[in-house]
């Protein structure tokens, strides 16, 4: 191949690695991706690295240490196009639960020697630190959407990742609405599409893995969830999962935090 392939880098911050695994999970498309881009930096796949700058940086994880806060600045400088992948990088992840508590207390409970732990008081999204060119939602991200984002980047077009509710995906898939039909609490109406409505397809309510949709009306949904039997504590917790620090979910959980 004589044409220069764009250089791809994959970076890890505070995260579980699941979104990076989604890239390895591309399986059938992985060879095609490797054919179209030079995988220059991807420690989860290979320790062999190529120096920057990079054309496309995929960033997984949130910023939870002073070291990370400095490192993301350097990565941004080396990256022509920076895409965050997953709930951690996009909203702070489940580890952003610390934002609602005292992280020193957590450390004291979890670690035998909490004095060894150097961490920030909060877990924050990459976009709170540097300019992000595109945010891909999900916990974890969908491999289908990741391939779409890379394909769109290569073609120089906008990725097709609609920001409307999960409900649209349910209806297009022909799913029964579990909330109306079964009385099952569901965050689908306030959650960003992208997963293909996996949970409602299996008669589970949506857990909000993709974070808030474009114009979420969480207070209205909460009023209905309350009618379905959720108490204030349950309402507080239902928004405090993988996207607890996403603004619409954070505000709504705080409204139910007495």
């Amino acid at each position, binding site marked *: 191949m004589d044409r220069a392939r764009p250089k791809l880098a994959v970076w890890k911050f505070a995260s579980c690695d699941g979104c990076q695994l989604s890239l390895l999970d591309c399986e059938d*498309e992985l060879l*095609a*991706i490797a*054919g*179209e881009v030079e995988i220059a930096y991807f420690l989860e796949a290979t320790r062999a690295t190529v120096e920057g700058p990079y054309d496309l940086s995929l960033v997984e994880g949130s910023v939870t240490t002073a070291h990370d806060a400095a490192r993301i600045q350097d990565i941004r400088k080396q990256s022509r196009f920076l895409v965050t992948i997953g709930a951690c990088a996009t909203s702070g992840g489940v580890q952003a639960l610390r934002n609602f508590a005292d992280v020193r207390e957590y450390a004291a409970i979890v670690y035998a020697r909490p004095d060894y732990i150097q961490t920030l008081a909060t877990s924050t999204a990459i976009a709170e630190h540097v300019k992000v060119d595109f945010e891909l939602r999900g916990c974890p991200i969908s491999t289908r959407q990741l*391939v*779409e984002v*890379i*394909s*769109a980047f*290569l*073609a120089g*077009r906008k990725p*097709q990742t*609609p*920001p*409307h*509710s999960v*409900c*649209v995906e349910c*209806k*297009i*898939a*022909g799913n*029964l*609405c579990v*909330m*109306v*039909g*079964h*009385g099952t609490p*569901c965050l*689908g*109406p*306030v959650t960003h599409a992208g997963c293909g409505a996996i949970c409602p397809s299996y*008669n589970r309510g949506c857990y909000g893995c993709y974070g808030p*949709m*474009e*114009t*979420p*009306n969480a*207070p*209205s*949904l909460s*009023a*209905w969830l309350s009618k379905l039997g959720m108490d204030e504590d349950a309402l507080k917790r239902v928004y405090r999962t993988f996207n607890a620090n996403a603004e619409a979910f954070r505000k709504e959980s705080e409204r139910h935090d007495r």
Partner: protein
Amino acid sequence: MGAGKALIGADKIQRRPIYFDLHDKGVGQERMAAQVDGAMATVTVEGLQALLQAIQARGYRAFGPTLQNQAIVYDDIDSIDDLPRGWTDEQDGGRYRLLRRADEALFGYSVGPQSWKKYLHAPKLRLWTAERHGEDVSVAPEASPSDRLAFIGVRACEIRAIEIQDRALVGDLYVDPHYKALRERALIVAVNCGQAGNTCFCASMHAGPQAKQGFDIALTELLDGGEHVFLVEAASDEGRALLAQIPHRAASNREIETAEAVIERTASSMGRKMRSDDLNELLMSNLEHPRWDEVATRCLTCANCTMVCPTCFCTSVEDVSDLAGERAERWRRWDSCFTMDFSYIHGGSVRASAKSRYRQWMTHKLATWIDQFGSSGCVGCGRCITWCPVGIDITEEVRAIRGCDASAEEPR
């Protein structure tokens, strides 16, 4: 207005649905089906099975109501044993539950979550595929479908909804070839409703509960008096040919009267009502009514109402390309005026607030649809009420804007 019309060739616009004539038997709005031709037949439950077999034998793929995942949804049916025998439903704003009936009715429920548009106007459709061959690019449009679909158990409101989609999708200058191909081959076996659902208001919209046109065969299920039979009206050549093929007898006067009583009882027991004769003027003169702000506090902008609406026809197109840039596809999928992308133009979305989007949907459905297509866009099926996750009720919203409570609503 004149200049705008001229731009799109007003002289070429066919104002009536092109399929209107296909099914229209010239039945006046107020005439009962029993009076058509005076030729009503009666078939037994076994006769209905014979009808289904005759339909399949003519090469149709039959779809009908089936019981799935605690709801009644349309799907392939092989025999009438696939129908939800002895089931009914209980509906309210944001709530749907199935219940057992005391009898063995095959059509003893009101409309479920899905409408027939899932077949005629598919949720997702590939429009074309493009491939690169060196320096050349070839584009292959998706072939029009050749399936012959038979819809069994189509309610009057749904026939009206199909006619409304006909107007939008094939009744004008720009014809949707996929819809057209399926629609002109489709066979419709209607069922007159034997009971009204709690969110039904077809009587208010003059769209039911009796199918008066637009069908090949219409059935009225009769369960009173110990016997279980169907009063059958064949209204097209295809329908009459099918009826001739199956065991049937001439309907008795008592059966015809019973069917009329069933339909009248349904019409008078609608769960919802909505005065509909002045909606265009009412809504368009209240575009800044405070109720729009109030409903916006409840509206989730989730788009469920538009997805379940049997007349909403809006779509978006999405182009996808492969990694190597060798192949691209254009897909069409259902879209909704409740999404931000729907009204996105350079600089942002025209309708950014929930208020503006709810108002756009409701005023189009009930008011400006009349200016655009010559009829209301609402058939009173009640799906937008039942399937709204927070139970927003279009009839209640209209009443609020009208400034009166339910007791003051005029009778249908």
